[in-house]
């Protein structure tokens, strides 16, 4: 199973391209899943079909479509955790979780987490169902944060594991010297096997490492989409820098909406990019329109097999 992420500034046409790429791959005989993480969901509009967070088969083809509502899953996630916490800490008045609930809905990081969880879920559940999964991503900033999240989380988890080990070590020492360490019946864990916290941490680390390894691996590509204008160039450079920093494999970059009028600017933009990133492959793309059938035509194969 292989994944392709279409990234880029809003409006450059990544939704269109990802939709087209998904179609083309399907036509070549692959089972394809197209997922949209972009809050400004265009996928359904492009295929003229109502979509939800559950994958939906397009007509009778091997193409499935899905639109993940990041905001909805973010608030669902918060709610379920808050409910659990409220239940466990019902007797604790110090931290007023009820009032924090609303604030947390908008707190930074939750949307990224929702996206990451979605990504994790899709990778896990659909890896045997599809040959290709094509992702339409949110605008640059959010996408970079999402892609950085596994590594960031792993770093934090490592640090927390370190502290937790020290805590367990000290508890064990005290247990050994002073006898059983417990208070009012609750036994405190002093070995790693008994400690649910560190087991959870190890668990989380494994999960995020799984995602991290996959998106850094040979079955994953990130394609940057841009337009032949210099505003687009700046954004693309930002994106490429981020992708390089995160050690993620680059796929073909697409110079979209490339018309004859834009030739000079387009060349200039491409030159800048290849100067900075000599290994970058760039494809010029222009979506044609069949006026008769009122459908769009792609003039080339977007995704070469990898």
């Amino acid at each position, binding site marked *: 199973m292989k994944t392709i992420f279409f990234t880029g500034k809003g409006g450059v046409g990544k939704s269109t391209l990802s939709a087209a790429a998904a179609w083309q791959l399907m036509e070549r005989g692959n089972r394809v899943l197209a997922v949209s993480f972009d809050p400004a969901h265009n996928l359904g509009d492009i295929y003229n079909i109502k979509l939800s967070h559950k994958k939906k088969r397009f007509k009778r083809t091997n193409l499935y479509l899905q639109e993940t509502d990041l905001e909805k899953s973010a608030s669902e996630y918060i709610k379920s955790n808050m409910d659990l916490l409220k239940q466990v800490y019902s007797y604790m008045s110090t931290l007023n979780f009820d009032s924090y609930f609303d604030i947390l809905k908008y707190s930074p990081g939750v949307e990224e987490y929702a996206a990451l969880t979605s990504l994790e879920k899709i990778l896990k559940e659909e890896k045997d169902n599809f040959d290709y999964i094509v992702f339409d991503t949110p605008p640059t900033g959010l996408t970079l944060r999402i892609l950085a999240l596994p590594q960031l989380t792993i770093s934090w988890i490592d640090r927390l594991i370190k502290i937790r080990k020290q805590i367990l070590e000290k508890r*064990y*020492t005290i247990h*050994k*010297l002073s006898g059983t360490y*417990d*208070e*009012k019946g609750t036994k405190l864990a002093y070995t790693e096997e008994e400690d649910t916290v560190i087991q959870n941490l190890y668990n989380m680390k494994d999960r995020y490492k799984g995602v991290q390894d996959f998106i850094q691996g040979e079955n994953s590509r990130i394609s940057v989409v841009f337009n032949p204008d210099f505003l687009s160039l700046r954004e693309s450079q930002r994106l490429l820098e981020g992708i390089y920093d995160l050690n993620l494999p680059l796929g073909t970059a697409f110079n979209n909406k490339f018309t004859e009028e834009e030739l000079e600017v387009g060349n200039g933009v491409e030159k800048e990019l290849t100067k900075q990133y000599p290994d970058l492959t760039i494809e010029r793309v222009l979506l044609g329109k069949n006026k008769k059938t009122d459908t769009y035509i792609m003039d080339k194969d977007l995704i070469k097999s990898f």
Partner: protein
Amino acid sequence: MTTLIVVVGLAVYVLLYLTYGKKLERDVVKATDDETPSKRMYDGVDYVPAKAPVLFGHHFASIAGAAPIVGPVLAMAWGWVPGLLWVWFGNIFIGAVHDYLALMSSVRYDGRSVQFVASDVITKRTGKTFYWLVFFLLILVIGAFGAVLGNMFVGNGQVPSAYILKLVAALILGVLMYRVKMNFTAATLIGIVMLVLAIIGGHQMPINASRGTWMVVMFFYIIIASAIPVNVLLQPRDYLNSWLLYIGLAIGGLAAIFSFTGFTAPAFTSFAPIVSGGQPSPFWPVIPLIIACGSLSGFHSLVGSGTTSKQLESEKHGLPIGYGAMLTEGFLSTIVIISVAGFGLSIIQGAGQDLTVANWGNAYAGAMNASFGAATTFTNSYAAMVDSTFLSIIPTEIVKVIAGMWVASFAMTTLDTTNRLGRYCLSEIVLPMKEKNEGMYNFITNRWIASTIPALIGIYLAWSGSFTILWPSFGSANQLIASIALLTGAAWVTKRQKAKNVNVVLIPAYLLWITVTAAIIWFSVVVLPGTIEANPTTGIVVLIIEIVMLIMNFVFIIDFLKNKDKPLVSEA
């Protein structure tokens, strides 16, 4: 005579514990069977009840130190009677009362420290003062104990050698207990064996170095020891110290009882013999600065209200633990006085000093300092006392090493923990500076700067200053904290307890405050000028500290008197 004084001392303490102590418990503290914070607020973290004997041991080990030994040795200049009276009655009516009230007021305040209690029964400003005073105390204690240790290490090279071996033993014990996780009893036995080996080893292989060298070694020891994890050195070492304390106390106690020797030191020399800085020092008000911990110590209020109060199982345990432990420490000082009174003269004379009963008042302090220094005067007298009994089977040189190790161990524990605390107090003190001068604030609280400031100033004082100057200055900071703590206790008794006979506490508290203030003024005016002349930097540093403390002291008493009849800060 030694035996007589031991028995009388024991009797005095026990009798007054049962009469005066019980009276305090009944009428002033009004101890009840109410649940103490350790039970009421039990959390398995800080608030955990401990059985009385265990808590007593813990509390006593925390308050026992080198000061109750060193102070009385210097106080012998007045003859053995005045010091003894202070150790007995100063302890019973002031010192132990101070400890007891600090403990019980804390218990009634949900285990909050005396600092917190002070900020409620007096003013918030008083609470803040503690940071300053403790900080100064930490510097001065490094200075005083550094000087004591420097003199002792130079005087008898076997002691530092034994101590270093003991450090090695502590490191090994730490590994056994915490890494290998050996059975505790087995590890203890190995620890004791290593301790004995350290004593013998030190005796066989003395280390001779100059005073300056020891100062440098101590400076680096302080820095390093306060940075390494507690399981590596501090904890196992403190544990070994307990065993050393048992051995020292046991041998000393037995020796004192079975010695049956007369005193060779004069009972009373004069009201103002030469004690500090070569100046005639009047017994009143100077005695608290000299015999601090044996009779009254500000440290104890912090220890008692810091950890002990949160573990007290029952209010009725407060008397034996708070009051009783202090009396026990007084008993320890009694034994010190007895040993020097019985054997000190010949020892100092034996070192070639011109000391007689006749010129004792003028000559003692100087002769003692010049020949052995206070610590070694004690260890040698102690050894002589042991030698005069059936315990003489233990070689005298070994006994000297044991006693020396005892003093050194307790003095050294002070040195390495003060730095950890000094950093903390310093950061609290300069906090107000953060807004006004952030650059300076960041500089002072920088980890490396903050770590070295207390140690640097302290060791510098130890290196350059004389023991008879440094000891009273340490005493002054200690006694200032004690007088504030006792007045806090008095305020608590007045405002919270509404006990009828508050004067039982209030009068000693006022008297103490007046005494300590007078003593510090005397010290600054009479003694320090000489120091400034001989050693300007040292003298000025100490003088500045004394002046700042005095100012805080006056601000404090004004706050106290103004708020005496006002309600508690929390209820205002």
